[in-house]
């Protein structure tokens, strides 16, 4: 298998593959797509090479979703004790109902609205005469039925067009109730160019309406927030287990298995650990400015990456007790990981994989494939920005287009009473001297081999073409892509919501992932696609038994 793969790669160089991907397009489309396909040189330049976060071309079958999906589905979806009320026609709320595999533990208070789907189910008369009254009534009914501590309102496309003022309605209801925080998200699906705009809109409102609402100091040492972890398939549970074992106190997770109070208390933590750079770096930046909490990039996908991230957190706090516990935990957890790898890697080594997911996931999961000694021959994001590909040093040189400029940027200042530097200048200098990097992310390209193809906003046509030309052993994307790839005889793993299974984060998660990938790439089923008579169609012998 390994030689076969090698042969194919020799046959098709990256430039040829790129040309083949583009050849069928109308010229204008071809020119645009050419800028979103990069043959990786991992230059780490200050100016982005690859164009990303730009409009999808109408008619070209994209993997992307909308701003509403990013806001309601991704960021706010996993919070269990907020009633998420969608203001719009029924579909938007229906499709985001339990489909992302966010797991939750209802905890001792038992409050959990995640299994419910709330909508104002706007009708024609609401579109014509306005839906504000219906929205206010729906908020009232939700309050009367459940008495939640918080109700979040989400706008769908027509809401922005007809001009319903969801923010004022929410504010009035909040004042009326007195004991329920009501706020709204202007996350109409047509805003921005992908889900990414929705993450930003969500985070702005979370920061504005939730963060800092509860100043009560929580017990525990080494307090951190984990930002950009959504507890798909229980990832967050595994990370929580590890934190607990290390003695790290996780004040809040944005937003896997989260509660209202976690967001409200998050400003009391002393470090922000950022998982999904794309969806959440905004919050980390704003919390640093307002409350003085520094942030570091972490990654709990991959056993080695998990160990590295734990060490990074321990080094920040700098206390021997924590550093020793973290080392002890790593020493305890790794033997099982290594045993699993020793068993599985002989069957996965040199297999090839392609990944087109998310805005950080394609990068995170490369760690796990590296551990399995598999080669990532092409990768990209569905809704990443330039900095997710090439590192944060390109940030000053990203040219914003009209779609991105329309997304609000909050002006944040240091909080008069609650801003508190977590480290003294001297401590910061010492960390810097030791090579400790805050706010640093080098992006996907830095970790990809030279000559591999990095493709932004890959579409269905290009996906098929890539598979046809490069014949990977495994393809990773989302549910919409899954079966067209599998029809070609190539196993496909969803890395948005994992199809089934998980967790894949942390140490136990890594073991789960190794087993899952072993299952996928070595499954017998891919050998059954042709019947015996199709494999050997030539007739020989006689038609009877004699």
């Amino acid at each position, binding site marked *: 298998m390994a030689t076969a793969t090698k042969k194919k790669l020799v046959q098709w160089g990256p430039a040829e593959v790129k040309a083949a991907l583009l050849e*069928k397009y*109308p010229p204008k*489309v071809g020119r645009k797509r050419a800028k979103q396909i990069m043959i990786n040189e991992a230059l780490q330049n200050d100016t982005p090479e690859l164009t990303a976060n730009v*409009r999808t*071309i*109408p*008619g*070209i*079958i994209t*993997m992307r*979703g*909308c701003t509403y999906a990013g806001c309601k589905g991704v960021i706010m979806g996993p919070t269990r004790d907020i009633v998420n*009320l969608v203001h719009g*026609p*029924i*579909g*938007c*709320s*229906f*499709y*985001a*109902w*339990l*489909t992302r595999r966010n797991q939750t533990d209802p905890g001792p208070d038992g*409050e*959990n*609205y995640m*299994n*419910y*789907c*709330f*909508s*104002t*189910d*706007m009708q*024609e008369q609401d*579109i014509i005469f306005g839906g504000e009254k*219906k929205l206010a*009534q*729906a908020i009232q009914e939700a309050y009367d*039925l459940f008495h939640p501590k918080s109700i979040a309102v989400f706008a769908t*496309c*027509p809401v922005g*067009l007809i001009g319903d003022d969801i923010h004022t309605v929410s504010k009035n209801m909040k004042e009326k109730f007195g004991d329920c925080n009501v706020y709204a998200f202007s996350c*109409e*699906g*047509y*805003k*921005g160019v992908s889900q990414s705009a929705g993450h930003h809109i969500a985070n702005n409102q979370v920061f504005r309406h939730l963060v800092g609402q509860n100043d009560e100091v929580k017990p525990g040492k080494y307090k951190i927030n984990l930002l950009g972890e959504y507890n798909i398939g229980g990832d967050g549970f595994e990370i929580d287990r590890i934190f607990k074992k290390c003695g790290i106190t996780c004040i809040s997770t944005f937003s896997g298995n989260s509660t209202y109070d976690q967001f409200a208390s998050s400003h009391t933590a002393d470090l922000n650990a950022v998982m999904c750079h794309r969806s959440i770096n905004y919050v980390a930046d704003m919390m640093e400015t307002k409350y003085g909490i520094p942030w570091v990039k972490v990654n709990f996908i991959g056993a080695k990456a998990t160990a590295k991230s734990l060490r990074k957190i321990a080094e920040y706090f700098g206390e021997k007790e924590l550093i020793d516990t973290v080392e002890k935990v790593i020493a305890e957890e790794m033997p099982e990981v290594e045993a699993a790898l020793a068993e599985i890697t002989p069957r996965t080594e040199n297999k090839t994989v392609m990944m087109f997911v998310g805005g950080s996931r394609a990068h995170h999961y490369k760690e796990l494939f590296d551990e399995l000694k598999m080669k990532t021959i092409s990768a990209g994001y569905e809704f990443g920005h330039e900095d997710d590909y090439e590192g944060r040093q390109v940030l000053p040189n990203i040219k914003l287009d009209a*779609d991105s400029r329309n997304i609000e940027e909050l002006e944040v200042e240091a909080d008069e009473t609650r801003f508190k530097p977590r480290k003294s200048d001297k401590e910061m200098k010492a960390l810097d001297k030791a090579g400790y990097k805050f706010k640093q992310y080098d992006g996907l390209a830095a970790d990809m081999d030279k000559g591999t193809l990095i493709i932004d906003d890959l579409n*269905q*046509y290009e996906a098929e073409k890539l598979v046809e030309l490069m014949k990977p052993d495994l393809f990773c994307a989302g*549910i919409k892509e*899954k*079966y*067209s790839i599998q*029809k*070609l*005889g190539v196993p496909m793993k969803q890395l948005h919501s994992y199809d089934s299974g998980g967790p894949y984060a942390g140490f136990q998660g890594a073991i789960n992932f190794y087993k899952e990938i072993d299952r996928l790439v070595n499954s017998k089923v891919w050998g059954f*696609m042709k019947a015996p008579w199709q494999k050997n169609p030539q007739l020989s012998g006689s038609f009877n038994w004699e």
Partner: protein
Amino acid sequence: MLLRHTPTEITERTALTINPAKTCQPIGAMYAALGIHGCLPHSHGSQGCCAYHRSALTRHYKEPVSASTSSFTEGASVFGGQANMLQAINNIFTVYNPEVIAIHTTCLSETIGDDLPQIKKKAAAEGKVPEGRYLISASTPSYAGSHVTGFSNMVKAMAGMAEPTGKKNGKVNIIPGWVEPSDMEEIKRITGMIGVKTILFPDTSGVLNGPLSGEYKMFPEGGTTVAELQSTGDSKGTLALGEWCSADAARELDKKHKVPCSILDMPFGLMATDRFIDALRTIAGVSIPDEIVNERGQLVDMISDMHQYLYGKKVALVGDPDQLIAMTEFLVSMDMKPIHIVTGTPGKKFEKRIKELTKDMGCKVNVKAQGDMFLLHQWIKNEPVDLIIGNTYCKYIARDEDIPYVRWGFPILDRQGHQYFPTVGYKGGLRLLEKILGVLLDRKDRDDSESKFELVL
């Protein structure tokens, strides 16, 4: 408890829908369009709609679902989506080259008032539609009706492709409604056995239940062909299965091209299948073959064999109007008691029809059109049932209330088989019965004490 916040006490809600028993029009239009051979459904709106519909259909069928979108941004939403649509048409024919693009609208494009017929004309005038290729369109605002309405609207647009030649084709149009690919296959098997020549549209068999063979065809073998759709105007009549899903298209053919139509219930269960077969017999002027009579007899046989386990059992139903009407009749015909029945789709006619079907049951029946599953759950809390029949979302109620449950309807996200095994016709009735008895008797086996536990049931 998964739905621990649902109170037993029912309070009136006028604005808040909780746990809907419907979704929006465009997904129905997309599903219907997949039943045209060589067709690419196109969603005229922001790209999230298309992504959600494709995901939902993919999860239900575990098959590729290709569809494109106009990818509206804020600019298009302000200035209108014509430029996006024209660009999309050009790109689609260049890159994917389908025979038909079936465009449906969304709440976004409807609210801003995009005029699809005009955009289609402009595309044709600008030479963006190659020879022998077609654009059809349906207006499917998400803020009216439900996914069923969207399905019906796209099927009506398909009927709009009819081009009568004046020479009858000797065929019967059958509009199956929103049923599974397996059901469409079964309808073709039945009509084939009877010897009636038909045009079935839409037909998702061979599209959404394809094989794994190492080849991917973006446009699979299945689907009603353009030629067949054009020929529907020459057919001798139309059988529309389901008032909600299929009647509008049938009436369109009647009104425009004088193709007479009969509106029947969807052929689920004994009696609705009887009426369907009988209608085929009369229209085609043929006698019914023994094989079909035997299949019917087998269904009657199983009902009589197992009647003791069905008799008097209370059932809660949720789903779409056409399916629920046929299912209610089927359950009543077996002396079961469907007592809570909800659809999210609007329609007073639905409530009236259900009341009629259940009037002799001798107990109170809760029925609601434009209702939701939160209400259904509350009804169940107030008067428990022995069985729930509905889509996958019912599993939360079934688990909380510990009630046997049969998955039937849309979407089914957690079990397989609906795309391969039909529930229409007599054979389909047998399968429904097998499923119903399976869960009821599993429950009996689970709950019976050791002394009452029996080998033979």
